[in-house]
């Protein structure tokens, strides 16, 4: 398959303006003749549904939760980047673009990233106008904080609940459209198939999670905005419901999946405490503004952290990376934490943790000063660990958090299935091999508010779309095969629970496809995943029926998808014989243990094509051109 990225011509700074002009338009009166399905109601989905509704399109929005307000974007803590340069510290659209391309270790598409940086300021303007209560200075103007991978303060925030406030803004905008009749909301529905008619995406099959009924919905285009696949590791900072299902099922209908091996392991999470653990909790990266990361220089030091003198503490990030210090990008911070623990310097009962210490900040601004900035995070830490982080340093360890890989999209955010668009974390395009902090919220909202409203119009205006309805064979067949899949799951009646399988998959992926990867481990992971999947289809136990509210069944469907997707994740990691960003191959590192890219062989997107059950994926490549940000070795020293 030839991948057409459809990147407009001209200098990178003018591509988007030019493209917006060149896109064909749908006349306002004609917009109401088009129906758009939006799957997922996080930042990307909710903002898309609201904006498309405002333009006059008919929108059908779907989410798995009881209300669209609960999508997992709500859990984003620290902030959202924009190039407003309010602090007067030298920021610009170009600098945000540059930092994001470099932060992504030169594996993102330049044109997309520049557009993202251009949209960043519009997002802040729009959210303020929506009533998002961003942090402000006493003069009444907006405040900024710093985040990893940048030397300017460009992060806007709403205490430690930025994602919540931005999501509620988008949710409220969408609810406004519901009241006007342009958006129809379908909550507690899970997408289980993408329906193609004449080679174009024309609808979806969803399971009504309350009644179990399989419903078919038709449309003129389908937008998938269902987030990432971090739960393939079982333990992650994602919500329990986050899954790869919509993405995977679109993939099986022809949408290529790009760079799945680019997974972000976030450096500051509360460590695992026991086998019963169901999820990991993130402590915002913003804490690294004031917290200092260290371990005792001597392994197994039995003293209380406060009794260990300065000279016997190893502030490994500050020592190794003096110019960025504790604010190195996430991949670098995580890898270094893992390294010191591998070297026996870890702390806590598991020895898989490092200290994040606020003693200096408390000395500087007092407990109240620290609490004003991070109060909710400190409270959350104390509730989970039963320890007071004002008195003792936090213990943190990296955990799966975000996935940069996703469905391949062109510059218009359209996948390789015409009419199937992919927004937010679910697509692959903007973060390369590593996402910088406070960039996910920016990307989700840019895609939904400011990109898709233009590009979807270009698709409609330039495409002949026949009328379809759900009684057509394509819909009936899709519903039938979905029903057969569900029946097969319910009829296995084996011995092991769904969670047991998911946990085993998590062990395999975390141990072998986590922070450090190598050929032998990846090959082992692939064969273990294949046999776990075979066992799943013989021995899983899914009690209850299809025609009722059945959370075990929901979960079984998601785990079945992860068991297929996990194999591709490992295969992609095995294929990429280099280290870049969040993908670290032990075989490819510098003598100092930093990631070593191979631009000669791997300066491309690896986009995988589904060829059918029991057949290998086919690899397609999109070469990445860097005309503005020149390929260099990333250094934060």
């Amino acid at each position, binding site marked *: 398959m030839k991948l057409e990225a459809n990147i407009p011509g001209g200098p990178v700074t003018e591509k988007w303006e030019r493209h917006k002009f060149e896109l064909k338009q749908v006349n306002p009166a004609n917009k109401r003749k088009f129906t758009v399905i939006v799957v997922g109601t996080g930042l990307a989905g909710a903002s898309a549904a609201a904006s498309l509704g405002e333009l006059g399109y008919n929108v059908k929005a779907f989410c798995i939760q009881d209300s669209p307000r609960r999508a997992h974007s*709500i859990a984003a803590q620290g902030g959202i980047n924009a190039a407003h340069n309010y602090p007067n510290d030298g920021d610009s659209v170009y600098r945000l673009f540059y930092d994001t391309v470099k932060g992504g270790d030169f594996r993102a598409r330049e044109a997309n990233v520049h557009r993202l940086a251009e949209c960043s300021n519009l997002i802040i*303007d729009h959210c303020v106008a929506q009533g998002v209560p961003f942090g402000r200075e006493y003069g009444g103007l907006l405040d900024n904080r710093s985040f990893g991978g940048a030397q300017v303060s460009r992060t806007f925030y709403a205490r430690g609940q930025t994602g919540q406030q931005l999501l509620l803004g988008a949710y409220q*905008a969408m609810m406004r459209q519901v009241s006007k009749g342009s958006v129809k909301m379908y909550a507690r529905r899970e997408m289980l198939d993408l329906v193609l008619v004449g080679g174009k995406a024309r609808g979806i099959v969803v399971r009504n999670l309350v009644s179990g009924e399989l419903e078919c919905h038709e449309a003129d285009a389908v937008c998938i905005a269902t987030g990432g696949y971090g739960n393939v590791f079982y333990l992650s900072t994602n919500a329990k419901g986050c899954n790869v299902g919509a993405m995977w099922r679109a993939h099986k209908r022809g949408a290529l999946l790009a760079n799945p091996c680019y997974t972000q392991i976030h450096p500051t999470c509360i460590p695992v405490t026991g086998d019963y653990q169901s999820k990991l909790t993130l402590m915002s990266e913003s804490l690294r503004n004031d917290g200092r990361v260290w371990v005792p220089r001597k392994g197994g030091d039995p003293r209380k952290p406060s009794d260990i003198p300065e000279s016997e503490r190893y502030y490994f990030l500050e020592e190794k990376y003096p110019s960025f210090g504790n604010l190195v990008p996430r991949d670098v911070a995580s890898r270094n934490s893992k390294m010191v623990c591998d070297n026996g310097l870890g702390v806590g009962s598991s020895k898989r943790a490092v200290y994040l210490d606020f003693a200096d900040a408390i000395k500087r601004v007092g407990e109240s000063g620290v609490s004003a900035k991070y109060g909710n995070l400190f409270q959350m830490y104390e509730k989970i660990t039963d320890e007071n982080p004002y008195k003792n340093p936090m213990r943190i360890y990296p955990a799966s958090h975000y996935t940069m890989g996703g469905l391949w999209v062109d510059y218009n955010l359209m996948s390789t299935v015409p009419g199937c668009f992919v927004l937010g974390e679910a697509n692959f395009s903007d973060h390369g091999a590593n996402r910088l902090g406070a960039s996910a919220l920016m990307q989700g909202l840019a895609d939904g508010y400011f990109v898709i409203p233009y590009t979807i119009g270009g698709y409609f205006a330039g495409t002949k779309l026949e009328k379809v309805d759900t009684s057509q064979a394509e819909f009936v067949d899709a519903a039938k095969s979905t029903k057969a899949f569900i029946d097969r799951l319910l009829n296995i009646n084996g011995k092991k629970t769904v969670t047991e399988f998911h946990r085993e998959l998590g062990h395999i992926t975390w141990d072998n496809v986590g922070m450090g990867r190598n050929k032998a481990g990846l090959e082992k992971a692939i064969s273990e995943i294949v046999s776990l999947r075979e066992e799943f289809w013989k021995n899983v136990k899914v009690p209850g029926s299809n025609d009722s509210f059945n959370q075990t069944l929901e979960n079984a469907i998601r785990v079945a998808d992860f068991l297929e997707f996990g194999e591709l994740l490992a295969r992609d990691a095995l294929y990429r014989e280099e280290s870049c960003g969040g993908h670290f191959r032990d075989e490819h590192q510098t003598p100092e243990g930093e990631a070593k890219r191979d631009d000669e062989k791997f300066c491309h997107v690896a986009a995988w094509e589904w060829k059918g059950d029991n057949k290998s994926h086919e690899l397609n490549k999109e070469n990445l051109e860097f005309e503005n940000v020149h390929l260099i070795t990333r250094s934060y020293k």
Partner: protein
Amino acid sequence: MSGNMNLTIKVWRQKDAQARGSFETVKLSNICPDMSFLEMLDVMNEQLMKDGKEAFAFDHDCREGICGMCSLVINGLPHGPDDLITVCQLHMRKFKDGDTIVIEPWRASAFPVLRDCVVDRTAFDRIIQAGGFISINTGNAPPANTLPVPKVNSDHSFDAAACIGCGACVAACKNASAMLFVSAKVSQLSYLPQGKPEAQKRVLAMVEQMDKEGFGNCTNLYECEAVCPKGISVEFIAKMNREYACATALYAEKVYDTSG
């Protein structure tokens, strides 16, 4: 870490909205104090399924206290016996070996039970649809720093905006009143200059929808504030009452257009 608590759990089981519900008793052993309450329920569900039964249904998602999905009444208290948290942040160290724990759904006629402890809270979405927003289309916004907002107003607005829409306030109230939830959104938006133009229309429409959904009135017992995981203050109810009174008066004089 080894588990060391033995517990008796009484959970509400109800097949669907129409069925009659009842309590089921489950004995659990080896529960570790560091487990979260929902992890304890995960253990219980694994046990139920191994015994050939269906899992107990409860809403949950983020498990870090922000999505507002989890919603259990534990020993009579929405979100259980700890302050300023949701059920998912409650830990078993708050209980003792040998305890009996009773688990029920949010009970309110506006929140019908769908199964076991899962309830339908779409009434909250409909209240927001009635006016819980600022009417601005994408693309219309002035530059962000055009309107300075006094920090104190912005902070008050945030305090109200912290509401996660879980519905514990309704579950705690003997009248099943949703005033804390509604007032939080009304206050968040009316503290900001951006929300002022629609403030009167908003409060009238949201209160009207709240009444239509069957939520009761406020009789100033403050149970809602006591159980609210985000510490939303009842002062916002007072603020909403003032705004409602003013808006009603002005509306009677037709000063504000409430159509469209």
